[in-house]
């Protein structure tokens, strides 16, 4: 072994230039830039897709071009079908979300605060959670008929678990040392639950709510198979539309926009409801 070979195993002594603080650009401009950066990849994919269709690499029978998809959406909008579907689906999704999410919230809080609650039904809920909810559609039809009830209940069922699990862990994971301090300072259990546990569990609850909102949208596709004549889930899988890839993709596009809307809603709610949270404070800085 020569000296150079030995030396190369370790970094050679030398000098490294220290980094300078980058000059900040104007705050507002930077914020727009950061948000715009999120759109770069989706827009790029859209461009490639359109290019592949325009230059004939993909046949319209397999995959319609983005322009055709937008055209289909415009067509649905002009005929009033899109709006009607959105309204019908929004009613179902929000009713299901409120019922299921509300139930999950209450069950999560009770099980989080009282061991008795956890013992009573946590195991049952963990079992139900693993039931594939597509499999219960026929049962729901038998039990609840073919009107709105089975659709809403199906969505509600799907929304219970994310809210329940996140609420439960949020309540349980509140720092016991803070609760102990509050006890020493003479706060009652009820006051501790309302003034300390609830706000500190909120970030976790919000995660559950965000997830449940997404699940509610996705469940529409399954729920609106049951004797539905409207709704975006119906539009997506409607047999008459099944040969129209432009409509199917239009609904897919619609879903991603709705997903973005849910995200935006939750982000806004977070900065309003959790001004004390590290993530919100860091963003404001």
């Amino acid at each position, binding site marked *: 072994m020569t000296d150079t070979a030995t030396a190369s195993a370790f970094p050679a002594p030398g000098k490294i230039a220290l980094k300078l603080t980058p000059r900040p650009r104007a705050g507002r401009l930077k914020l727009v830039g950061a948000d715009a950066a999120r759109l770069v990849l989706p827009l790029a994919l859209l461009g490639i897709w359109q290019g592949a269709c325009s230059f004939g690499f993909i046949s319209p029978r397999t995959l319609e071009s983005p322009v055709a998809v937008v055209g289909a959406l415009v067509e649905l909008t002009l005929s009033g079908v899109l709006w009607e579907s959105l309204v019908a689906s929004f009613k179902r999704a929000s009713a299901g979300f409120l019922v299921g999410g509300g139930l999950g919230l209450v069950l999560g809080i009770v099980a989080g605060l009282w061991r008795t609650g956890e013992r009573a039904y946590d195991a049952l809920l963990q079992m139900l959670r693993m039931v594939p909810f597509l499999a219960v559609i026929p049962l729901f039809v038998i039990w609840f008929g073919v009107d709105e009830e089975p659709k809403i209940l199906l969505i509600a069922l799907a929304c219970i678990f994310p809210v329940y699990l996140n609420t439960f862990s949020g309540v349980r994971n509140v720092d016991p040392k803070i609760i*102990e301090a509050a006890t*020493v300072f003479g*706060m009652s259990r009820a006051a501790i639950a309302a*003034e300390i546990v609830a706000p500190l569990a909120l970030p976790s609850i919000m995660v559950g709510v965000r997830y449940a909102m997404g699940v509610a949208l996705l469940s529409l596709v399954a729920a609106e198979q049951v004797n539905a004549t409207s709704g975006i889930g119906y539009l997506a899988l409607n047999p008459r539309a099944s040969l129209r890839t432009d409509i199917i993709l239009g609904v897919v596009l619609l879903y991603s926009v709705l997903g973005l809307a849910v995200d935006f809603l939750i982000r806004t709610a977070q900065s309003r409801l959790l001004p004390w949270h590290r993530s919100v404070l860091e963003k404001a800085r």
Partner: protein
Amino acid sequence: MNQAIRTPLLPAEAVNLQEEAVSLKGAAKGFGGRTLFEGLDLTIRRGEFVALLGASGSGKTTLLRILLGLDTLDAGEGEVATPRAAVFQEPRLVPSQPVWRNVLMGVPRRARQRRQALDALAEVGLAGHADAWPVTLSGGEAQRVALARALVLEPTLLLLDEPFAALDALTRLKMQDLVRRLCARHHPGTLLVTHDVDEAVRLADRVLVLRDRRLTLDATVGEARDGTTPAGARLRARLYAELGVDPLGLEAAGASGRAP
């Protein structure tokens, strides 16, 4: 932190210094089949600053938890005066509440006034931080908020569970001075649980050592606060000996010094 402290709320003559903030008789506590202490008697009077020293696992923290009502006595009897307040090793602030609301944690909801919190925060030198969120505070600042939260109650009994242990050396000294001044001003009976001999002697009027299930030492600090005096050196040496520690590392140094 160094701003002038205003006239006392409670003049010394208005406080009954004979009042017992803590009285324990024949107290005993076991944990997991092991006796932590038994037959323990302890009285702390109003205005008295007592430090309780002991090695890890000696039961000193358990004793403090009993005084806080977070744990129970197995035998014996005891009484603590109220209002009772505590500062822990961690600040234990509620992150979802601004600083001033945290300060009022122990104040009954209907009696809560922002003014009280601002006064208490001014006392600990954090007047400008009333509306800050706890996560934005440094460790020392958060611990001063915790101190304000205790003092706003005008406690008869103040229990300190190693409140300086997590602070850096300089912040710790400043914080110790602050606690000392505030205790002299509010006259609570104070029990400081610590494993730091210097801290105990620096702050307390009386130091106790908990060892082998009982209080093996109960000494008045008095003249011995100054470590450069013979009395000060003697007290520290006694405390270290009682805790089974060689403070200067003389034995270890001697052993290696003798080596050729």
